[in-house]
């Protein structure tokens, strides 16, 4: 059993549902509490069993057919409402005006969101490509004083490069990458056996439409903006730990 004091947060932590502050607090607690650590490993074991046991019940095909036959889907047309032709024309004109106003407000929003999604897809693709043999580094070094100067003259900005080995995120190298139609810096960090790509490029203002975290094809992404640079960390590492690195990098 988890302990009394913090045990109630254990499930929120296990499900990645705690906010950043509580996540960090719980991780501090976890280091000192063997009961919670044990409970967490048991919950992990049980989740693995649950997910590998084919317990999900899919709908039989016959049910799908029954429902389709049952529903008036595609069979019933809405009854036309009788009204004068002039009235219809006025209504149509009003509808067009409304559509234009709504469209003007909604479109940039949609466009922004699609752009954000595209970028997230690009980030994941870059990260996956980097994991293929020979693509991870252009410069392989755990020394920030080797990695940072390596970027000089290759980019039109100087990315911040810091090693966080003592906090459990050793720097292992860096490479040039291409995202969002420009050259970007990619730093590679390691957390136990997980590799993390941190992409960095200049952005004058905080982009409004980007989500803080996203999950695509099993990879977690954390985005943030700081001092005129845009950051995105991508990894198969869980979100709370990825956020920890983001914090170290100044999220």
């Amino acid at each position: 059993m988890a302990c009394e004091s913090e045990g109630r947060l254990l499930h929120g932590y296990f499900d990645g549902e705690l906010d950043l502050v509580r996540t960090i607090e719980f991780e501090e607690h976890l280091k000192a509490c063997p009961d919670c650590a044990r409970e967490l490993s048991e919950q992990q074991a049980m989740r693995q069993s649950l997910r590998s046991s084919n317990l999900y019940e899919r709908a039989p095909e016959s049910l799908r057919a029954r429902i389709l036959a049952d529903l008036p889907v595609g069979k019933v047309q809405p009854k036309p409402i009788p009204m004068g032709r002039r009235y219809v024309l006025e209504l149509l004109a009003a509808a067009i005006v409304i559509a234009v106003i709504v469209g003007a407000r909604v479109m940039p929003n949609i466009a922004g969101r699609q752009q954000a999604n595209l970028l997230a897809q690009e980030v994941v693709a870059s990260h996956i490509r980097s994991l293929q043999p020979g693509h991870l580094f252009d410069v392989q070094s755990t020394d920030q004083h080797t990695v940072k100067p390596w970027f000089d003259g290759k980019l039109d900005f100087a990315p911040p490069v810091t090693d966080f080995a003592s906090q459990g995120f050793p720097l292992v190298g860096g490479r040039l990458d291409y995202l969002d139609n420009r050259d970007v810096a990619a730093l590679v960090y390691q957390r136990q056996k997980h590799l993390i790509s941190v992409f960095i490029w200049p952005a004058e203002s905080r982009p409004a439409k980007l989500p803080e975290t996203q999950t695509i094809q099993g990879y977690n992404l954390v985005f943030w903006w700081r001092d005129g640079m845009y950051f995105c960390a991508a990894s198969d590492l869980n979100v709370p730990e990825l956020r920890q690195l983001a914090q170290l990098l100044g999220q």
Partner: protein
Amino acid sequence: MGQNGTFEQVVLPHLDAAYNLARWLVRNTHDAEDIVQEAYLRAFKFFGSFQGGDSRAWVLKIVRNTSYSFLEKNRLVDLAEEFDETIHTAIAELPGAEAALLQSADSRMLRDALEELPVTFREVVVLRELEGMSYKEIAEVMDVPIGTVMSGLARGRSQLRERLLRAREREVQRGLRK
């Protein structure tokens, strides 16, 4: 027509999720099929009032309500069952041993243990672990605050864990007698 597409586009893709939830709530395939069919008719009727947003949660909420009506009508809702979650099984006092046991639980044992859970705990575990929903989505389906989802999961998982450990223990004892 709803806000963001037709009934076919918005509601039909969640048929597996609907069936999975109904099947775990009523615990048999025949009733689950009837319930999903009824829920889909209701969803079709109310589709005009769907405001857009999370369509899976919207559909599952209807399936859940239909399932509960069925359980209540047939007096199948388990009375709040007393279950002592703190009893420790005699097995496995060694650190890590329980985790190993839980990991080795087979499908049939898991299915039985999950089916035995009181319906509210079963529901929250199914939505989280099988359907992979967030607390916010689960709260929407069950119409409860997010805190209730977290405490429900804590108790549901704790009961599931104890049931699994007991089942393993019985199995080991039977094995020893042979």
